[in-house]
C-alpha cells in the first residue's frame, strides 16, 4: 500500500514536470503549427542557466527566474530570427529545429561538459513533509504518517498553479482570446487587424519560458546532464500525441497519464516501463489519432 501511494505521488509529480515541458510545446504547435524539436534543448539550456545563476547568486529563486527569462528571450529570438521567415513551411521549420537542437546539444556539451549537475532548492524545500495519510498506528494509537519529499510537493503545486494560470490566461484574457482565435483560424485573426507576429512572439516566449522553468525546477528535483534534452523531448512528444497537439488541457491529461504510467511501470515491471508508455501512445493513435483533447483536422 505504501509503495502504491508513493508511486502514485511520484507519478503525479512527474506528471507536473511533464506538463510544464509539454504545455509550452503544444502551445507553440497549436498556434504556429511549428513542431519545435528544439524544445528539449530549451529545457536543458534553461536548467544549465538556472544552475549557473543560482550558483552565482546563492539564490535558487533567482536561478529559476534566470532560466525562465533567458529561455523566454531565446524563444522570441528563435521566432523573430528564424521561424518567421519560414511561415507555412512546416517541414522546413521542423528540420530547422532539428538542426538547432543538434547544434545546441553540442555547444552545451562544450560549455558544461558531460558532467551531471545537481543543485539544491532553498532550505525550507529540502526534507520531507508528513502527509495526512495514515500508514499504521503505533501501540499507543498515534498514527504514523507518510513522509514525502517537500520539494516534490512544491513541484506538484507549481505544476498545478501554472496549469491553472495558463488556463485562465488562455480562456479569460484578451490576449488568450486572440491566441485561441489564432489556433482556430490564423488568417482570419490577421484580417481583423491584430498583429499576428506579436501574438506569435508572446506564445513562443511563454512556451520557451515554460521549458526553461521546467528545466530549472525539474533539474533541481532530478539532475541536469546531456541527454536530458532528448528525454524531455520524448516525454513532450508522447504527452502531446496522447493528449492532442495544440491543446493545453490535453497536455495536462496526457502528462497525467504518461507520468503515472511511467512511475507505475518503473515500480512494478521495470524493464518494460518504456513499453507501457509506448503502448498508451499506440492505443491513443489507434483509437483517437487526434489525441484525447485534440480537434480532428479537416
Amino acid at each position, binding site marked *: 500500500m505504501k509503495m502504491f501511494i508513493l508511486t502514485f505521488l511520484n507519478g503525479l509529480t512527474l506528471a507536473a514536470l511533464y506538463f510544464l515541458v509539454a504545455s509550452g510545446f503544444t502551445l507553440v504547435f497549436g498556434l504556429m503549427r511549428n513542431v519545435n524539436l528544439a524544445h528539449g534543448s530549451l529545457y536543458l539550456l534553461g536548467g544549465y542557466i538556472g544552475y549557473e545563476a543560482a550558483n552565482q547568486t546563492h539564490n535558487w529563486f533567482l536561478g529559476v527566474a534566470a532560466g525562465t527569462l533567458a529561455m523566454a528571450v531565446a524563444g522570441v529570438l528563435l521566432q523573430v530570427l528564424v521561424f518567421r521567415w519560414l511561415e507555412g513551411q512546416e517541414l*522546413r521549420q*521542423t*528540420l530547422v529545429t*532539428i538542426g538547432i537542437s543538434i547544434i545546441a546539444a553540442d*555547444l552545451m556539451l562544450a560549455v558544461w561538459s558531460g558532467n551531471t549537475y545537481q543543485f539544491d532548492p532553498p532550505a525550507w524545500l529540502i526534507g520531507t513533509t508528513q502527509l495526512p495519510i495514515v500508514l499504521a498506528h503505533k501501540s499507543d494509537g498515534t498514527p504514523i504518517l507518510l513522509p514525502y519529499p517537500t520539494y516534490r510537493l512544491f513541484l506538484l503545486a507549481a505544476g498545478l498553479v501554472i496549469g491553472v494560470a495558463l488556463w485562465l490566461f488562455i480562456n479569460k484574457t484578451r490576449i488568450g482570446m486572440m491566441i485561441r482565435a489564432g489556433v482556430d483560424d490564423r488568417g482570419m485573426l490577421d484580417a481583423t487587424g491584430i498583429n499576428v507576429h506579436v501574438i506569435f512572439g508572446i506564445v513562443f516566449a511563454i512556451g520557451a519560458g515554460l521549458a526553461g522553468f521546467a528545466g530549472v525546477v525539474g533539474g533541481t528535483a532530478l539532475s541536469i546532464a546531456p541527454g536530458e534534452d532528448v528525454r524531455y523531448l520524448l516525454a513532450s512528444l*508522447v504527452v502531446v500525441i496522447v493528449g492532442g497537439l495544440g491543446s493545453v488541457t490535453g497536455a495536462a491529461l496526457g502528462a497525467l497519464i504518461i507520468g503515472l504510467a511511467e512511475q507505475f511501470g518503473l515500480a512494478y515491471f521495470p524493464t*518494460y516501463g518504456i513499453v507501457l508508455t509506448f503502448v498508451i501512445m499506440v492505443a491513443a493513435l489507434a483509437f483517437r*489519432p487526434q489525441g484525447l483533447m485534440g480537434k480532428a483536422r479537416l
Partner: protein
Amino acid sequence: MTDITTPGSTLATPAEIPVSVVGHVIAAVLLLLFPALSSDFFTFQIGAYSLVMGTIALSLMLLAGYGGMVSLAQMSVAGLAGYMIAIFGTNSSGAGLGWPWFLAIPAALVIGTLLSTVVGLLAIRTEGIYTIVITLAIAMALYFFTQQNVEIFNGHSGFAGIAPPVLFGIDWRAPKPFYYLSLAVAALSYAAVLYASRTPFGLSVQAIRDNARRMEAIGYNVAAHRIATYALAGLIAALAGVLLVWFDGRISPGTISVDRAVKILIIAVVGGLRHPAGPFLGAILFVLLQNFAIDFVNPERFNTYIGVAFLIVVLTSPDGLLGLLGKLGNTANAAGAANKSLPES
C-alpha cells in the same frame, strides 16, 4: 500533406532533375573501379560506409520524397535488422542462437520490414507534420527499450563480434569484398526505388503525396499505398541494417540512438529528396566530413559543424545538394540540361 516535400515550390516529377543514362554509366564505372584506385581504408571506411548509410537514407528518401512521409524510424528499422543478425546468428557474447546465415538474414529482413510496416500502420493514422512526431517517438521508445531490455537486446552493451559468413572462400568483411557487397545492395535498392517510382504503384504514391483526398475520392486505397511504401522502405533499410552490423562488427542501443536517426535525415535532406541519387550524395559528403573534418577543425565539435551545414542546406536549398547541382547544371548547360551527367564521387 501537399507542401511537405517541396516547400515553397511546385511539385515536380523526378525527371525534372535529369540523371541521364550517361551519368549512370559514368557513376557505375567510377563506383566499380573505386577499390582499384584507392587504399583499403578508403574502400572500406569511406566507400562501403557511404554506400551503407546512403542505402538507409535512400529508404527515407523513398518515404519522404515520393510518399511525402518523413519517417525518423528508418534507422530503427535498420538497427532492428542488425540486432536480429546478432541474435539469430552468432556473436561473441555467446547469446546468439547460432542460426546459419541463410536463415538469419531472411529472418532479419522480414522482422525489419515488419517493424517498418507497423510504424507505417501507426504513422498513417495522422498526416503531414505529425508523421515526424510519431516516428520520432517510436524511434526513441525503441532506443530506450533496447537499453533497458537485457533478455533480448542485452541492454546497454548490446552485442559484439558479429561478422558476415565466409562464403565461396571469400571473407566478406575484407575491404574489397565488403565494398562490392555494399555496392550490390545499394545499386539494387537504388534501381528498385527508381523503378518503383515509375510503376503505376509508384506514380499513385506520388499522386497521394500531392493530393491524398483527390486520390481517395477517385477510388484509390490511400492507406494501403502508404503502408506498402513503408514496407518497401523497411526492406531496403533492413538490408542496409544487415550490412551496417557487419561493418561495425557490433551493435548496441547507440546504433539506433536519436542522434543516428537524425543523421540519416540529415544525409537524405542534404543530399536531396527528389531523386534516389540524393541520399548517396549526402552520405558521401557526410562520411567524408566525419573522417576528415578532424584534420581541419576540432573533432569534438563535429556535431556543431554538421548541424550548421544542415541548417544552411535547409535554409538555402530545399532540394539539397542535388538541387544545387541541378541549378549549376542548368546555368552551365542551358541548352541541353537533359544530357547533364551527375558527378558521383
